[in-house]
């Protein structure tokens, strides 16, 4: 089964052009309590079904994008650049 991601900049490309950045979550605000940081740092929804996640197009436009993927079939329903006006973190750094 081919696993392809429709990059909003470059079009549909193989998953091997991308780096997976994990599921999308909102970074706690400064002053958040320990539990919020615990949830953010460790707990994962690990959705069996549709999940919003970060991807980095390392062999393409080299931008972070978000994709909604069905994790049982790897079909990407939607991929988009995060809107600057919505609350967001910057995504995991490339390591």
């Amino acid at each position, binding site marked *: 089964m081919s696993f392809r991601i429709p990059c909003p900049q470059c079009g549909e490309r193989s998953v091997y052009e991308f*780096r*997976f950045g994990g599921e999308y979550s909102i970074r706690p605000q400064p002053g958040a309590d320990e539990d919020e940081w*615990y949830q953010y740092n460790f*707990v*994962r*929804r*690990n959705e*069996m079904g549709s999940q919003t996640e970060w991807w980095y197009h390392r062999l393409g436009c080299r931008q972070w994008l978000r994709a909604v993927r069905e*994790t049982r079939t790897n079909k990407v329903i939607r991929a988009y650049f995060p809107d600057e006006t919505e609350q967001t973190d910057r995504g995991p750094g490339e390591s």
Partner: protein
Amino acid sequence: MRQLFRNDRMWRAHELKGAYDIVIIGAGVHGLATAYYLGRRYGVRKIALLDKGYLGYGASGRNTAILRSNYRTPEGVRFYNASLKLYEELSAELGWNLLFSQCGHLTLGHTDTAVAGLRVRAETNQLLGVDSRIIYPAEIQKLVPHIDCSDRPRYPIMAALYHPPGGIIRHDAVVWGLARACDRMGIEIHPLTEATGVRVARRRAEAVLTNRGEVAAGTVVNATAGWASTICKMAGVSMPIVTPPLQACVTEPLKPFLDAVIVSASLHVYVNQTGRGELVIGSEIDPYQSYSMKGTLPTLEQMASSALELFPQLHNIRVLRQWAGICDMTPDFAPIIGRCEELDNFHVDVGWGTYGFKAAPAAGRYLAELIATGKVPDIIAAFSPERFRRRRLVGEKAAAAVSH
């Protein structure tokens, strides 16, 4: 003759009763081992093992059947060594040949950094009484005459961590043997029984809902691999787990030539030859989480090219099958065993990532002890579910199939 076979069933089918002392979700090698030790050591027999597939459908039948205890953290080494020792006795104990071949296990180092890591493991292992030492190309060549120890490969072999008690076992036989032993103690095994929900009240998991009806439980155990998060979510328990697939393949049978398990973390590959002569080749986990158990061509190519770096003479060998299993990875590459803080009777034996099969007997034995006595045995204390909240991570950097 027909009667003969009928009387010798490995395990029997049962009607699902309304209540059990212990309900174990997942009748793989971990669930079975837990039930087995609960029955054998503590006399608990009113146990139901539920599995959504047939026995051995999940990780218990998809792993590469490698057993070893040459881990890096003292907690890991102690635990996996206990497991290896239990595996050594298991065939005799079950009266069932598990075809355990302690052919030796070699972890190759191709860079200075990798060799430094292997040295740490050798020292830690020796300190804890595990047979493990660093050997160099001359000795590697003697143990594995067909491996390419020359300077031809891009990353020539510099040294290896040699672990003589490591080896391979027939993983289906482990599942069948444990299931047979459980059945003989009166423990019920229910294949094709999918847990669809957990009824929670007063901080207790009171019942497991299944496609065959509701089952009340004194204690619930989540012993699934790949579906740990899904089952925990049913009980309202959150988990620090992501689930990427891990792929492996098997080649056509060859004459016996490889009498050791070969692992190379730098090349992301491990190879062993089964009793039937097939080569089992495993790869690194896929670089994304997914519940899809389909193999992919790039991973097959990677497995083939890495195996050829080690054994160039295999270039004409055909691949018979390729498959994927899904692995519940934790942030510190160590499992999560124990009672969950959120519920008083809900136990987990999850997060087994790429190292679950080899751990099954010890996980089952000590989880059984925890369930029966209510006290956390020292050997699994470091793997508690609350360690992430307390920031006491284990950091097992010698887990297979993961880059660190």
